[in-house]
């Protein structure tokens, strides 16, 4: 039986503010446990929260980037529940009047685009971190728990999507695009592995129009995990339904190592949060002029940039996605284009070999020893047939390790490609003379033998022979 998959995401983004949401403690929560704390973020008696304007600003910028409306008057609520890493035993969050409402994000897929609605973006405070010591590793059955409140009170933006996502692949693409957007506007480093970007998913499958029972999945620590967890859950639900079972509404935990989801104990979930308006904070009423200012200060966002790269340079979707993922990479690309080289070729080298080198050496694009101009130069050398593609690969590595320009290396090492037909012809003749079997094979229509002879010429020329001319010359000689 065919089922339709429906997915909605809830994403928490840790905001990169200098100080925490309601006190002056630093928001970078590393360091020794409980050293970045004060009476406010420890929930000491009598302490009061004071809103960090920067956190509001970041959330509004995020909302604007996701095409949301900014609420003219937004309020904070208390979400009440007991947990040892929450100093006040309530979390200051937003409830019925969030800062940003009703946006969307267009996700470019292979061959189609998916418009994902954004229900809301709101601001809330993070909790501390618990370390439950005991066999279970969970709070239930722990011998004792250690609490670190350095993270308590760090501002979090929560993004809730409409259930518009139709597949695990779309979910991943959405999350990646969202991460790019967050990084473009600089409000967070968006690292899933480190928890500064946390994605929870709701997924249901249905045979008809009516939506199925949704299941919430938590604990996906990478984009890959998100996709895998959803694919697993999609399949699990399909099996349950096909065997005549029913889906239970529950929260499930993704176990990445085992590659499965399993249900969380419901006790931790069954809360009435008793939301009520936070009396210690005033409503946030952002002035329209400020919102306009923030809107105008936004950089070109990934979606717009992708559209432009596609239409201006005719790049394929996959290549565009790779180039625009990071603002610095996209900037690098557009800088490299100034060399006048072929946009596709430049994109191919940046998204391909250069990205691989950077990845291998764990270097950020901003710290790349290969400059945009070098990429332009490299592509120029190939286009002018000064060097072959094969040579270019080695040349890029050399540029990467030495920091010298490709042209300089070519000059120093005499790496110029041999394009002189007479010179090449003498080599081709020699190879034909020395390999009668290969010649015989070629005449019998064996494609392989051409490659063999090409290789011999390459060897003889120490990789400098122009492959196209060489190939033409062999064919011409043997025809």
């Amino acid at each position, binding site marked *: 039986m065919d089922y339709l998959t429906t997915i909605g995401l809830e994403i928490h983004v840790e905001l990169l503010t200098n100080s925490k949401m309601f006190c002056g403690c630093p928001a970078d929560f590393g360091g020794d446990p409980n050293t970045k704390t004060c*009476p406010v973020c*420890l*929930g*000491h*008696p*009598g*302490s*009061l*929260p*004071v*809103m960090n304007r920067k956190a509001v600003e970041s959330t509004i910028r995020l909302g604007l980037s996701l095409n949301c409306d900014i609420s003219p008057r937004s309020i904070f609520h*208390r979400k*009440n529940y*007991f947990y*040892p890493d929450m*100093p*006040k*035993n*309530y979390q200051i969050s937003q409830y019925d009047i969030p800062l940003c409402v009703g946006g969307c994000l267009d996700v470019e897929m292979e061959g189609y685009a998916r418009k994902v609605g954004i229900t809301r973006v709101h601001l809330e405070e993070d909790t501390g971190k618990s370390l439950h010591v005991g066999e279970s590793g969970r*709070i*239930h*059955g*722990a011998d004792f*728990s250690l*609490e670190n409140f350095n993270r308590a009170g760090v501002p979090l933006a929560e993004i809730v999507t409409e259930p518009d996502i139709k597949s695990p692949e779309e979910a991943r693409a959405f999350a990646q695009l969202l991460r790019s957007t967050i990084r473009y506007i600089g409000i967070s480093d968006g690292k899933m592995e480190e928890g500064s970007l946390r994605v929870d998913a709701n997924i249901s499958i249905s045979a008809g129009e009516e939506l199925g029972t949704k299941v919430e999945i938590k604990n996906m620590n990478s984009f890959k995990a998100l996709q895998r967890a959803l694919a697993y859950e999609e399949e699990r639900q399909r099996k349950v339904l096909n065997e005549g079972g029913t889906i239970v509404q529950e929260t499930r935990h993704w176990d990445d190592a085992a590659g499965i989801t399993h249900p969380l104990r419901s006790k931790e979930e069954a809360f*009435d949060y*008793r*939301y*009520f308006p936070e*009396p*210690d*904070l*005033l409503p946030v009423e952002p002035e329209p002029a400020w919102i306009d200012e923030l809107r105008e200060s936004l950089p070109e966002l990934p979606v717009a940039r992708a559209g432009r790269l596609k239409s201006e340079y005719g790049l394929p979707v996959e290549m565009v996605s790779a180039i625009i993922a990071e603002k610095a990479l996209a900037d690098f690309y557009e800088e490299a284009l100034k060399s006048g080289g072929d946009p596709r070729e430049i994109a191919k080298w940046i998204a391909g070999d250069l990205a691989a080198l950077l990845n291998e050496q764990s270097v950020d694009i901003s710290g790349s020893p290969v400059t945009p101009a070098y990429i332009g130069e490299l592509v120029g050398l190939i286009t002018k047939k000064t060097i072959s593609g094969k040579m270019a690969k080695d040349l890029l590595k050399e540029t990467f390790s030495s920091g010298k320009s490709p042209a300089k290396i070519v000059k120093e090492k005499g790496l110029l490609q041999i394009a002189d037909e007479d010179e090449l012809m003498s080599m081709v003749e020699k190879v034909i003379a020395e390999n009668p079997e290969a010649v015989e094979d070629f005449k019998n229509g064996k494609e392989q033998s051409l490659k063999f002879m090409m290789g011999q010429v390459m060897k003889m020329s120490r990789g400098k022979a122009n492959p196209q001319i060489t190939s033409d010359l062999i064919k011409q000689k043997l025809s």
Partner: protein
Amino acid sequence: MAITEMEVKEIAEKINNKELSSLEVAEAFLKRIDTVDAGINAYITVAHSQARKAAGEIDDRIASGESVGEYAGVPVGVKDVLCTEGLRTTCGSRILSGFSPVYDATVVKKIREAGLVILGKANMDEFAMGSSTENSYFGPTRNPWDPERVPGGSSGGSAALVAAGEAPWALGSDTGGSIRQPAAMCGIVGMKPTYGLVSRYGLVAFASSLDQVGPMTRNVHDCAVLLDMIAGHDPLDSTSIPGARPCYADSLNPNVRGLKVGVVRELTSTGIEPGVLREFNKAVELLAASGLECEEVSLSSFEYGLSAYYLIAPAEASSNLARFDGVRYGFRAEGEMEDIWEMYDRTRSEGFGDEVKRRIMLGTYALSAGYYDEYYAKALKVRTLIVEDFNRAWGKFDVLVSPTSPTTAFKIGEKVDDPLTMYLSDICTIPVNLAGIPAISIPCGLSGGLPVGFQIMAPPLQEEKLLSVACGLESLLGFDEKPPALI
């Protein structure tokens, strides 16, 4: 005259012109405390050594010719709901019985900067929940006018210590009448400022949208002086009101002829003790005879004030008090425990008293899914109606008046098993907190040998007018009775 009977002004002058040292003054009051407080229990903690040290420092500064504040060296009592760095702050609760704050409340910082010497922390109903100071883990405070009676509450300790001469003045906090009602029952002046005029930073929250710190003094002038010290915008309290404010002590003007006074019918008709009503009416007549226009006014929403209050305040309290869980500070239950949930349960069961538990349960219920609209949301609507009623009244009147408390001080134990009757004790003071306006209680006479309080209410931020009317009435009344038990 004994130092402990002197007016604040006189003490301050004598310290400033070196007739008295700050230390001598502190010693006099500490001695008074050591003599009488065993019978009154107005203080939870007496800060003998810290007070001596602070007084000594003021003396040193005066000796070295440094200019100190006008009231530097004057002692003060502080309700134990205000955080004092390094000085135990219990809120009258077992759960904070060993808690020493790491910071000073803003108002505490301000009075320290003004040079006041903190003698100790005043007893109170646990977490300011109560009207008699009987709900204290540290035992009830007794009324200096009659030790068999309560001093009112929740700032009963602050009221009693001022009445008993254990400090010339004190700070209290008022959520539904907790300054004014005990002030009335102890025959002193007590004022709740406009919500937001005084910082709440470091005031351990009971009901955040209602709480306000205020002065408890022997006379209206001192009240204005102490208010001047503690009022003003605080960037650490988002609900604190920005902007400049007048000097209240300088702007006191007892000549208030021609002002229009509204006598609130709902607070003077049913449920008021005859003796209280008699003294109240005499004071109103005095005002009328002195050229103020007094007229009855009906504010019908007040009928629902008490009910709304007992939904809003417990709701906020249920959340505010959640932090007392034994995890980070304060009391933690001992013994083997299954898990953290049992630790929470036992810590809070053993750490909180009955009234606090009652209100946490009330508030938790009022905020629960399915009941929120019926209770909490409806209470907020009543609150809006009360604000609107007040606003209509301000169109016609400069101030409104009523008795402060429907009764004089009642016997210890009399209402302890009847919370609803106890709650009625705040019926006249609650609408003021719900509307966030300022109000003051001044003594206006005795009934059966016990003080009766007269409440004056004014529009938001009109403390000048409020204090001037109080000052005018104070001089007309000439109330100078002292607690007989202590003379």
